């Protein structure tokens, strides 16, 4: 009897994978960690943005006479320092990507037709590219002498 059992085909031979008998998997496979990273990014960037944005608002609108102090000279002074350049650059990228990812999930949730979904996303990604490009360009190529 034991010989028969040993010669029998191994049903579970190749590890734990079992093919389901009749039903096919629904065709929605993506096999990447994209959604996982997207989800994590929202949480992490959110925490960072709380510090960056609140700090930004405090400096710009509350301290040192509030909003009235903001002028060309004020901006030029701040961007002379690499610290504030990086602050603004990180804030720009995180806020834009955070917003884009949030809108992407909202489009996925609410746009019902594939066409609508495609065009809304096309619009979203195009606008994001423009904002990120222009913002980054200004931070890096800002010329404090342009006013003279």
């Amino acid at each position, binding site marked *: 009897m034991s010989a028969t059992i040993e010669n029998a085909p191994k049903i*579970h031979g190749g590890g*734990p994978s079992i093919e*389901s008998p009749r039903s096919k998997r*629904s065709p929605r496979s993506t096999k990447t960690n994209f959604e996982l990273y997207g989800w994590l990014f929202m949480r992490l960037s959110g925490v960072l943005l709380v510090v960056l944005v609140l700090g930004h608002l405090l400096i710009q609108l509350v301290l040192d006479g509030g909003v009235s102090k903001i002028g060309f000279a004020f901006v030029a002074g701040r961007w002379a320092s690499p610290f504030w350049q990086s602050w603004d650059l990180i804030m720009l990228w995180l806020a834009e990507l955070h917003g884009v990812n949030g809108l992407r999930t909202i489009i996925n949730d609410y746009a019902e037709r594939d066409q609508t979904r495609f065009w809304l996303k096309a619009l979203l990604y195009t606008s994001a590219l423009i904002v990120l490009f222009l913002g980054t360009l200004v931070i890096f190529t800002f010329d404090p002498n342009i006013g003279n």
Partner: protein
Amino acid sequence: MTAVVEETAPGTGHGSTAAERDHTPIVITLRIRRFNPETDAEPYWQDFKVEADPTERILTAMMKIKAEQDGSLTFRRSCAHGICGSDAMRINGRNRLACKTLVKDLDMAKPITVEAIKGLKLEKDLVVDMDPFMQAYKDVMPFLITSGNEPTRERLQSPEDRERFDDTTKCILCAACTTSCPVFWSDGQYFGPAAIVNAHRFIFDSRDEGAEERLEILNEKEGVWRCRTTFNCTEACPRGIEVTKAIQEVKRALIFRRV
């Protein structure tokens, strides 16, 4: 620990007060969302007046309507005791089992609305096409996956290991959670809370070896990451399963790659 969390106080039964034992029948109005695919283009509301004891269930009132007023009223029911999961419906705007909802727990003075669960194709009156729901359930492989030879005795497990997935063993597949989920309503591609709950039941089972595969399936585009933690599912579950918590536990297992 398999007991069901109930919102109602344990007032019924032997220790009930006089008011609760008052079985004077009253007339209630059931406002039912009707739809006959052969004659109607759109579903419509129809009012039925029916005599009911306040301690009776909505299902009893509906069966009375079907028997005495309109035999064409169509709904699913099987065990009628809250365990088969057939009669999930949207009663007064909330997904519940008609067989576990008592008349006295609703506003008896106003018409009680009864409609089919949302997000699945309406077939007739309160009957919807459950196939997409069951397909999502099948997709997470809700069965024990092991390797090697079968053991000669039971697969033993410590009470602590069992406790990890105890909550999610209670699911009766009534679809009350999945059809209360706004993400599922939008396009029906999302796996839905019920499928994730049943994946959770095996992912966190120490005897099962298919956790990796199930996690991979739930990591996909329509998997756990579409959950917005609106808690509609937890609120709707007639078995008191903490559905949103189970979904979060699957997310955590995916992030840390550890079950």
